[in-house]
């Protein structure tokens, strides 16, 4: 199972991952101009990325869903909207009632309210969007976020 890993020693806290995450989860035209589309998508918009750079003076790294083996969010969900699909913790927007219990339950703080506020959203490894591979990984300028097989087990 491949997972997103943060490599703290190479993170520049440039926050590019957050913007690429936000962009990847917005609608895209097939074959459109990537840069122009990103500008159109994100211009003047407050983004709610599913990956966040945690930073202070000494250390910074990008944090997104860990896809826990026993997800606290899944356990806490009152509407059964959170499920594990092929090892990826996913939220079904149609079932989510926007109670945000999962946001409270997540020990990493990696679940955020969606733009419209009606549901919760989280990193689903870009499996469901136009990107096809984690956008944060693809666009990290310093390989500080990698998408790799979990080595243990």
């Amino acid at each position, binding site marked *: 199972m491949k997972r997103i890993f943060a490599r703290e020693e190479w993170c520049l806290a440039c926050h590019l991952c*957050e*913007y690429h995450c936000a962009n990847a989860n917005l609608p895209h035209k097939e074959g459109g101009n990537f*840069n122009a589309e*990103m500008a159109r998508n994100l211009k003047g918009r407050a983004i709610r990325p599913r990956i966040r750079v945690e930073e202070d003076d000494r250390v910074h790294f990008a944090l997104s869903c860990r896809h826990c083996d026993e997800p606290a969010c899944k356990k806490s969900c009152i509407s059964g909207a959170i499920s594990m699909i092929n090892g990826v913790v996913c939220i079904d927007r149609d079932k989510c009632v926007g109670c945000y219990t999962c946001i409270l339950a997540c020990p990493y703080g990696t679940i955020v309210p969606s733009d419209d506020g009606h549901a919760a959203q989280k990193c689903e490894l870009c499996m469901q969007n136009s990107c096809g591979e984690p956008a944060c990984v693809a666009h990290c300028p310093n*390989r500080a976020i990698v998408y790799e097989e979990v080595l243990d087990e």
Partner: protein
Amino acid sequence: MDLYVHPRFEVLRSEKKCICCRVCERQCANGAHGYDESAGTMESYDEKCVNCHRCVALCPTKALKIAETSHSFRQNANWSGHTIQELYLQANTGGVLLSSMGNPRPLPSYFDRILLNASQVTNPSIDPLREPMETRTFLGKKNQTVTRDTRGRLKDNMGAQLELRAPIMFSAMSLGSISYNAHASLANAARELGIFYNCGEGGLHKDFYKYGPNTIVQVASGRFGVHQPYLMAGAAVEIKMGQGAKPGIGGHLPGHKNMGQIAATRMTPEGSDAISPAPHHDIYSIEDLRQLVYSLKEATGNTKPIIVKIAAVHNVAAIASGVARSGADIIAIDGFRGGTGAAPTRIRDNVGIPIELALASVDQKLRDEGIRSDVSLVVGGSIRSSTDWVKAIALGADACYIATGALLALGCHLCRSCHTNLCNWGIATQRPDLVRRLNPEIGAEHLVNLIKAWQHELREIMGGMGINSVEALRGNRLMLRGVGMTREELDILGIKHAGL
């Protein structure tokens, strides 16, 4: 009041594309970008921009570009705007102008005026994809006599040699002038490519001893970090007599860069200026140089070839002849386009001679004197492409040194501000937050790609000439023709004019 110096560059931001992600602001160590909270827009401080393109490269919507200012002085063919501004700077500060990297002046490039040959009809060209093409090269003194023992068996009397998978190496850049991560990139790439990198005059960081078989260690006039294990760690030892960017000038690593591991590696007190004197204070003649060459040979048990690096200056052929007689195994010559982490601008831009001319005259002189086989010749000072490389070999070089090209592969955009310690690409800086911008994994990959690409081109070009080994290309000046050169230039280069 100071004389006004207008900003050289203008940051051009497309308001339509800018999404105010502030990546440019976070990534500019010079502070050329800012964010106006109240207006919710980005702003630029043109006077701080050095045109390093870090913001341009990282802008996710490609909303940025940097332009040379169109601000002008009244037209004057003698006093260019740039010259006037430099004069203002000096009038304001009373200081020597400092610059970095190689000489940028529009002086002639001889490489650009040399054309290569190719086979047609009478001598078949070779397809490097289907036939073997040898690029392996050995550097060091080659014996001209065969000796046998009493039973008639050949005696191995060959001195220490450097074996390169391709005749190219990364030239000396000290830890201090460039970052730990830049060194890690070079060392890793050299190992993977089967070539060598040169640790420069700042000593060898303890973490890099493991790359020793692919390292050339340098002994310069400051003798920083030189001790017995250091000399034994490398595959060869280089004595630095001069540098193409600043012949006749020493080095100076300012105290604020000489901190922590840099200072420890140099064996100097932290925070003290690390000064390399202009001359070696124990070398005032070829005989003195010979003493150092043999001291180093003795210190390393004759197991390492000794390289002597000199800058290309007016009388370079005679100097090289002397160096060859000093017992050096390899002579490295650095041309006037060679780079530096910091040099007085006037020196960098006006001292030294082009490497093409220096190389041709040195090679010829050593041949004339019958001592060409006593030394290998390595040249550097702006080998910009595989064709510069091929032309240098055909002019007589055994191998080439590249450094500026290698730094470009690491992300350098030639903004020539290395001396400010604010390198936004993590190369020429010691600020930890900037150094981490260069991930050596990525750096080494780019370097390996670059050299592999050049190797492909080298094979392709040699194949076209009908040559299947670098040995056969070396000094093969018949493969070269000049265009637009004077008789004198052609004579020095030892090549014919195109059409002949």
